Each structure stands twice: as structure tokens, then as C-alpha cells.
């Protein structure tokens, strides 16, 4: 109990939003429903996958602004390749493909983009902010070329059923298939961050890159691996998101990088480097999704969502920095 209180004291945003959720659950009709929970889990999973990708960049004092657009590109490519053979608006030049092969293809593309990010950052020493900002625009351009700025639909039903399906009765208790992804990804990342040399090196680089290099860590290789992993996560997220949305367009996942960074920061990943846990990322993303649902149920004009989300990001980082800027 004391631990929980201490956690809330150190993470006031989490405490505040959980309190708001409780209040909403008690006072607003339909807020505490199985359907809502299931939606929350599905939405959280996709953001969680993206946030896990970004978390490595943040822990090493970097960032990845190309995340959202990479998710979008992966979603569009997956969307094109997954189109039914008999779909009239079909744009895919290839015959109908197996959905898992398509996942593999987008993952390879994502890994390549991420590796490019990592290379520019580690070999050309371009600050991550700039390198990934450039990549954001490049990827968006590619996405426009690939889709010809047209929305993509007509997906294989199996793809939608497997990814976006649910177990249970949709009117009563039900859980989304995506929950499995959340659990598996969480476990994999927990293992990487806590148990492998790569994870330890990642924290070491975030703690002090020069010291890590002096201690024999191949910091360049670690960074490339981190950005590449991030790219893979965005690709997976894009693949999942397209199925969940039932369609894709070049605007898919726009701005998701900021949501992911916000989720990480709310969850205690420090922008000053070296600090962050997988459980923290999950809590951060979950809380951020709760915020969105609360705003929606309160009937706030959706355009204001951006205003609120932006504020939360800045406040979260300000609170985080406050922990480390000690009084002289």
C-alpha cells in the first residue's frame, strides 16, 4: 500500500487520471462497460507496441519522430498487399498473398528504415531529433507515392478476423485478440531490457554514452540495433492498425509518435536518459488512452483532444525533469 502511494506521489498524472477514471466509471452511464474495456485494450495494444519501439530511443537520450509515419507506411503497404483478389479497386500488382508473409514483408521494410535511422545517428552523428524528423518526411513521401494518396480497402476477411477479432460475446464480456500481442510484446521487451547485454548496454548508453564507450560497449552497434528494433515495432503496429481500422490511407497513424513519447514519459521513461521500464511504458500508454476515452465521454469536441494531449506531454516532461534538476 505504501509503495502504491509513493508511486502515485511520484507520478501525479497517473494518479490524477486513474482517479478521473474512477469518478467517470461511477457517475457516467456506459463508461464502465465490457465493450469499453475491450476497446481500451485494443487501442492500448497498438500504442504500446509503438511506445515500446520509441522507449529504446528515449532511454538512450534520443527520440524517434518518424514513428507515426512509419506505422502509417507499414499499414498502407500491408493494406495494399492484403487486398482481396476479387476486389474491384485493387491496386496491388501481386497475386493474393498469405497474411503472415505480408507481416514479414512489412517487418523487413520497417527494420530497414529503422536501421537507416540508427546509421545516420550513430555513424553520421546527426542528432536523433533531426535525423528522425527528416525520416518522418521521407517516409510520408514514400507513403504518398505508394498509395497515390488514395485510401486503400478491400482487405482479406481472414486478416481482419484474426487481428481485430474478439473472444466472447460482443454485448457482454469479451476480449480482443490483440491482448495476446500486448502480453507477448511486453514479455519480450521485459526480457531484452532486464536480462540481456543489449538491454544493459542500452541503459548504460542512456546513463553516460562516453562512459559506456570507454567501458567497451559498441555504442554505435547498440544504437543501430535499438532504432532497427523500433522500426520493426512500428511495422508490426502498422500491420495491426490497418486490420483494426479495416482500411488504410497516407494519413494513418499521423502524430502517433507524440502519443508514444507521451505514453513513455507519463510512464516514467526519463528524457534525460538511462531510466525507463516496460511496465512503466504500459501504464503510461494505458493512462493516455484513458484520458482520450474520458474526453470522449465528456463530450469534448474531438479537436480539443490535441490541445489536451499536447499539454499532457509537456506537463509530463516538466514533472520528469523536475525530479532530476536538483536544487543547488
Amino acid at each position, binding site marked *: 500500500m505504501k509503495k502504491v502511494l509513493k508511486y502515485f506521489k511520484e507520478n501525479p498524472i497517473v494518479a490524477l487520471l486513474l482517479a478521473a477514471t474512477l469518478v467517470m466509471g461511477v457517475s457516467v452511464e456506459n463508461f464502465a462497460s465490457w465493450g469499453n474495456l475491450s476497446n481500451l485494450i485494443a487501442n492500448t495494444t497498438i500504442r504500446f507496441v509503438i511506445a515500446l519501439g520509441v522507449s529504446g530511443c528515449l532511454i538512450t537520450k534520443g527520440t524517434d519522430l518518424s514513428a507515426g509515419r512509419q506505422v502509417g507506411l507499414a499499414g498502407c503497404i500491408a493494406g495494399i498487399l492484403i487486398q482481396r483478389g476479387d476486389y474491384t479497386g485493387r491496386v496491388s500488382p501481386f497475386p493474393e498473398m498469405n497474411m503472415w508473409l505480408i507481416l514479414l514483408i512489412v517487418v523487413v521494410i520497417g527494420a530497414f528504415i529503422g536501421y537507416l535511422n540508427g546509421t545516420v545517428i550513430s555513424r553520421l552523428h546527426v542528432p536523433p531529433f533531426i535525423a528522425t524528423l527528416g525520416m518522418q518526411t521521407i517516409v510520408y513521401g514514400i507513403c504518398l507515392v505508394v498509395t497515390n494518396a488514395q485510401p486503400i480497402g478491400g482487405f482479406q476477411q481472414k486478416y481482419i478476423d484474426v487481428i481485430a477479432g474478439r473472444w466472447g460475446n460482443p454485448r457482454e464480456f469479451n476480449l480482443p485478440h490483440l491482448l495476446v500481442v500486448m502480453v507477448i510484446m511486453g514479455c519480450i521487451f521485459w526480457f531484452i531490457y532486464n536480462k540481456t547485454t543489449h538491454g544493459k548496454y542500452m541503459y548504460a548508453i*542512456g546513463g*553516460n554514452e562516453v562512459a*559506456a564507450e*570507454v567501458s*567497451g560497449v*559498441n555504442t554505435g552497434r547498440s544504437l543501430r540495433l535499438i532504432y532497427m528494433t523500433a522500426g520493426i515495432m512500428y511495422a508490426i503496429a502498422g500491420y495491426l492498425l490497418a486490420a483494426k481500422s479495416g482500411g488504410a490511407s497516407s494519413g494513418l497513424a499521423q502524430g502517433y509518435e507524440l502519443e508514444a513519447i507521451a505514453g513513455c514519459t507519463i510512464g516514467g521513461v526519463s528524457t534525460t536518459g538511462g531510466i525507463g521500464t516496460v511496465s512503466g511504458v504500459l501504464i503510461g500508454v494505458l493512462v493516455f488512452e484513458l484520458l482520450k476515452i474520458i474526453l470522449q465521454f465528456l463530450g469534448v469536441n474531438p479537436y480539443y483532444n490535441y490541445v489536451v494531449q499536447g499539454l499532457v506531454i509537456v506537463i509530463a516532461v516538466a514533472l520528469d525533469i523536475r525530479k532530476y534538476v536538483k536544487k543547488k
Partner: protein
Amino acid sequence: MSEYTLEMRGVSKSFPGVKALDNVQLKLKPGKVHALMGENGAGKSTLMKCMFGIYTMDEGEIYIDGEKAEIHNPMDALNKGIAMVHQELQPIPARTIGENIYLGRYPMKKVLGFIKVVDHQKMYEDTAALLERVHMNFDPKQKEGELSVSQMQSVEIAKAISANCRVLILDEPTSSLTQNEVDALFRIVNELKEEGVAIVYISHKMDEILKISDEVTIMRDGKYIGTWDAKGLTNDFIITKMVGRELSNLYPQRNNKPGETVFEVKDFTSINPKSFRDVTFGVKEGEILGVAGLVGAQRTELMEGLFGIRSHTKGQILYKGKEIHVNRPKDAIDQGIAMLTEDRRGSGILGVLSVADNISVASLKKYLKHNLYIDDSKVEQLVKDNVEKMNIKTPSSKTQIQSLSGGNQQKVLVGRWLANDPEVLILDEPTRGIDVGAKYEIYCIIEELAREGRAVIMISSEMDELIGMSDRIMVMCDGRVTGFVEGEDMTQEKIMSLATQFE
């Protein structure tokens, strides 16, 4: 009117894990040079930073002309006529000398009667006058980054003077100056004295202190030891007061026998023509090779070159007779070489990470199970062994290393390297910023490393420490090795004469 220009009373200041100042006092008289002495880590710089408003005192008061003064930041200090030349200079290299001097208080003028702009003409004229006063013949519009360290120091002094200060703090001003520059500095100091400025002079150089100062205050371990009239003080008296015990038991007994040469360097030359060049030396098993030199002698650069942190153009490194190629730290580490870097904060500790993470980072591959994941119990064992062996004081293995004291941080870093069982250890200023008690412990650890048959290369700027610990001392000057001294020849005078053999 008080007889003191500035008085500090009962000053205390704590940092996490260290009490840096404990009830310290300092009284400055107008027109006098007041030397502040003490070992590294005695709290001199901290006291000055409290006076200058960089740190906030936990307890204590400052009186200026007998009246209580509140100083919360450097701007307050400057407004009250206190100026400081910092030990570590922080100029803005891409801006001109004039802009550096007048940063934050540019002379202004009005254009068209209402738009305030910087009056560059006045700024550069004033700068030229100031530079003349500190006997520097420079163009005020020259970029600060083009100056040498000593020249930047002179600019800093010019900046301090420009504030029309009544109290001037000089924190180790001569550590990087040549004799001519020191003379020039002393001339300026004497001129300021005549104008009634109270000067605080921090230095380790005994002869300078006795030459320039009127009064001496000595500190030790953050405590005030006493204030004496400089006349009639002797070196021995000052050292005894500074160290607080007899010099004889400052260093552990040495009884190791150096064996075969394990590490040899031939014609090692930096890619930077101003840095180390044509360096040739060797270290034997179980030997402690001291490396002496003035600031700017390129000792650190040489060692970082050998460890692959910096690049070299030519030269050979032989390890046990075989040539090895070192292009990055990992190459050296893989061969069994370790290096404790000079800048503990900058390139040593992983601040926000735990003691366990810090101690294991260079040897993580050793704790892998099934070549896949790290066995935490092995890391715990490593921490436990080191905590016991080196008497590291830490609440737990999960404690953030930055909350430990400097000495304990250093021990953790030594432990990091020992985990790899290296045969050659390069220690760059291993006791810098460490309090006296912990220093002796570090010395004992170094002595033990040599006794175990490891070759130790130790850079130090503290002459006593080098002489007390080394079997042999290599002296560098301006990037070159100017000689080796051994046995009876290891005296301050011999080393200084080699260290000042400029070409």
C-alpha cells in the same frame, strides 16, 4: 566600517553523501591577498562557489563591509563587487573576446532615440583597454576559441577586473600558465592590491603562495583549520596543517618486485600535431609507472590514445611482446587493458544507473547463461565481492551510483575494471576530488594491484602522490616524453625541471 571587506561565518554545505563544508569561516581584508589552501576535495572551490552564489549555503552568513549580504546567484555577487575566475573555464568559443567579457552586461546605446542595441564600438574599445591592463596584446574581436587555455584565463581575469570588483577570487589561476604569464598575473594582482581589492588566491603551488599572499587560511575535509599571517610560514607547516597527519604514513608500504615488461609503446604519435608525439616507454609486471607533467603536457591525451579513445597516426603498442591494434576502447579491453578515466562524471560513472549496473557493464558477457541472458546472481556476487574487498560504502547494489561519495564511486569504477582481470591498468588521476581518508584506501588498492603482478600506469598532478606511489616516473612536457626518474632521483625539483623542458 568593518575592518573586513568580506566575511563568511559558519558556512556549511552538504551534497548527497558528503559534507563538503562544515562551519567554515573566511575573513578578507581590503588590499590583501588571502591564500586559501587545502588538498583537493578540502572544500575550497565549494566555499568560493557559495560566496559567488553558484551554490546556496545550508548554513552560514556573508557580511560585506560588516553588513549582512544575501547572495543567491552569481548576478548578486557581481553586483556586490565580487568577481571570480573559475578553475574550469567556460568561455563561449565561437564568440569574440569582447563578447565573452561583456556577456550578459553588454554596453547599450539607442538608435533613432528609442531602439536599444549593443554598442559594439564601446564594447571593443573597453575590451582593448582591459586587455592592455592585463598585459595581453590581442585583438578584442578575435574568437575566444582561437586562444590557448592560458590566454583564455587572462581574458577571464580581464573580465573580472572589468566588473570593478572589490573582491576577486582566483581559483588555481596559474595551473596552466607559463612563468612569464605567471609574472604578468602577479603584476596585475599587485596592482589590484594597491587599489584596495581583496583577493582570494587558491593554489597548490607552495612557492607562489608564500610569494604573493599576505594571509593564509587552511581547510581540510571541509573544515576550517586556521588562518595565519603568511610571513614566517614554512612549507612543512602548511602541509602538516593541510594533511592533518605526518607525511610518513600517507602512502602504503611498497614491496613489490617489478618483473618482465608487459606493455610497450613505441613512437606513438597523435593525429593532432599539437598533442602527444614520438612517445616510447614500457611498463613491467607489478610496476607502478607514474606519469608527471604540467597541465597541457598531453598525458591524458596519450593514455586515451593508447586506450583507443583518441586516434593516432603512427606508433606501435606491444602487449607481451606482440603488437596489438587499438582503434577503440573495446580493442584494448579485449587484450586485458583497463583505463580509469580522469573525468569520473564525464566518462566514468553511469550516473542514474545502479551500483550493480555500473560495476558489471564492462564484463557483462561473463555473466551470461546459455549465452542468452544475464544471471543476476552472478552480478550480485560481483558486487558483494567488491563491496567487501574495497570497503565500498553503499546502501545496496541497486543504489544509484551518483548518490555515493566520490571515493566510493571511484572504487566502484576500479571494481568495474577488475572484473575483467586486466593485466595493464591505466589510472588517470585516480584520487582527484576524493577526500583524504578514501585516498589512502585507493592507494592501498593500487598497491595491491601492483603486488598481484599487474602493470599500473598512473597519471597524477599531485607530485607527492606520484613520488609516494611510483616505482618510476615518466615526465612529459608539451606532448613529448622528456625523461624518466627513478629511486633517489624522484624529487620535485628533478620532475619539475623535466616537466618544463619546452622546445
